[in-house]
């Protein structure tokens, strides 16, 4: 049996498959279908200081092999999260990563501090939510990214994963995050997209644009992860369009230490545990004991010994 585990900063995940923020709630919903302890970890929906109700419907729009969303950070706020959700999440039997979003760097730091409690294994800084009316993306500027990570680094001893947008100067932002002590880079969030309802001639979302996710963006996210894994020394967590174990493997070959499944959960609710099994089988069939030879092999001429 190969050892699927991966180390991200101070955390050892039992396998490299996590579920992505905003697509898995707080874990209880999918727990009706399978045991989340089979996963490497669960990333929560973004948590903010105050409860937020998010954007009005419609919030979803399908595009070819993709999904546009305009959820807009609906969440119960950090207090209710700590009180209601975290205790349940501790029972999931897998790493709990809390995704946070703030209006200012100071808000991120306050969230990081308040979430520094037993049961939270890492904090993912959502520097890249495209769906907040009137807000730019902090993570598309290296200076903004640096400031958020710096303040959070002071506020908590927990691992900090910097989740970047896929657009803008991402490599520079990643280096800035690394320089300020981020533990890992989560790449990436959704791409900004648009759909127009041709019956009305209006954008389908009240907030005009939405975030594009799903298989459509996989080649773009993969390119980014390939470049990021060369640009920084901290682990990169690959996200974007992963819907099968072959996709996950591509990200690992591109240099990712772990992956997150988002829209894949909607395409197949059992997607994430299937990924774990598929990856395990791949390693076992190749007689590999760990991720060493495979991770990043696309930078080194491929799998050793492959034709």
């Amino acid at each position, binding site marked *: 049996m190969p050892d699927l585990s991966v180390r991200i900063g101070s955390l050892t995940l039992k396998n490299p498959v996590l579920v992505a923020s*905003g*697509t*898995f*709630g707080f874990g*209880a*919903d*999918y727990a*009706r*279908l399978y045991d989340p302890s089979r996963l490497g970890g669960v990333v929560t*929906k973004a948590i903010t200081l105050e409860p937020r*109700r*998010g954007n*009005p*419907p*419609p*919030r*979803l*729009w*399908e595009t*070819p*092999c*993709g*999904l546009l*969303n305009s*959820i807009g950070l*609906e969440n119960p706020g950090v207090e209710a999260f700590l009180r209601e959700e975290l205790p349940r999440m501790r029972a999931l039997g897998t790493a709990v990563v809390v995704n946070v979003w703030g209006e200012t760097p100071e808000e991120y730091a306050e969230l990081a501090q308040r979430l520094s409690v037993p049961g939270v294994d890492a904090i993912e800084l959502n520097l890249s939510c495209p769906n907040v009316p009137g807000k730019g993306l902090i993570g598309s500027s290296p200076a903004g990214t640096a400031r958020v990570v710096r303040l959070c680094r002071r506020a908590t001893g927990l691992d900090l994963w910097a989740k970047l947008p896929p657009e803008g100067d991402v490599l520079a932002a990643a280096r800035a995050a690394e320089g300020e002590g981020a533990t890992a880079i989560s790449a990436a969030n959704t791409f900004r997209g648009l759909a127009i309802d041709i019956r009305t001639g209006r954008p389908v979302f009240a907030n005009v644009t939405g975030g594009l996710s*799903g*298989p459509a963006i996989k080649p773009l996210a993969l390119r980014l992860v390939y470049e990021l894994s060369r640009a920084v020394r901290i682990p990169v967590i690959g996200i974007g369009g992963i*819907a099968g174990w072959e996709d996950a493997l591509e990200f690992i070959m591109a240099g990712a230490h772990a992956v997150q499944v988002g*829209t894949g*959960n*909607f*395409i197949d*609710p*059992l997607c994430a545990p299937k990924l774990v099994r598929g990856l395990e089988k791949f390693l076992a069939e190749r007689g590999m004991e760990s991720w060493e030879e495979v991770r990043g092999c696309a930078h080194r001429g491929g799998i050793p010994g492959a034709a």
Partner: protein
Amino acid sequence: MDAVALRWAVVRGNAEVAPGVFLLRAEGAFRARPGQFYMVRAWERDPLLFRPLSAFDLSPGEISFLYGVRGRGTRLLSRLSPGEELELLGPLGNGWPEPPGRLALVGGGLGIAALYLAAKAFGGADVYLGFPGRPFLVEAFREVAAGLRVASESGEGGERGLVTDIFSPEGYDACYACGPRPMLAAIWEACRRAGVALFVSLEERMACGLGACLGCTVFTKDGPKRVCRDGPVFRAEEVFDA
């Protein structure tokens, strides 16, 4: 928490019961309460998502769905032939509550899909159906309804007009309604005046169907609610401005 399963089911029939309206029957032992729904798919990645459909009917060894062809997903469903398979995630949602007494079921168009199982399960309900075009499945409803009234644009198969023209809440303890928003709003108006409890089944676009993605949220008086998990059935006063 109710158990939810992801299953394959073999299609037994997929008959066009009215132009663009299909009754899809699939094999298997399913349990759903009236008003619950399934996430359905019969394709790989295009479209990406499952489609929510109410459980129309259940019998030992069979489940059926009544759906209208709207876009790509329902068009693909309409091409299924017996022997082919579909994927079902469910049962999902809260379903209609146990009725408190005399019950009226009011359906408009394809909204009737959420009511048949209710009529069957909650014996003694009066059923009011409205159709924009030619009525369909009226006979099936007649068999399970205590009383049945039908309205259609042409008057064919019943009375001429809208379902809101033939339905009055007087004398009922509760009314369960499913159909287009303007119809629900009109029925709410009538029920509110008459002091009759109204429950409505809502529709929103869905990605997960399980309550995880917050894609189907509606704003209610009690805060944001997920149609797939907290609904699809809501007390009308929660979702409509009183």
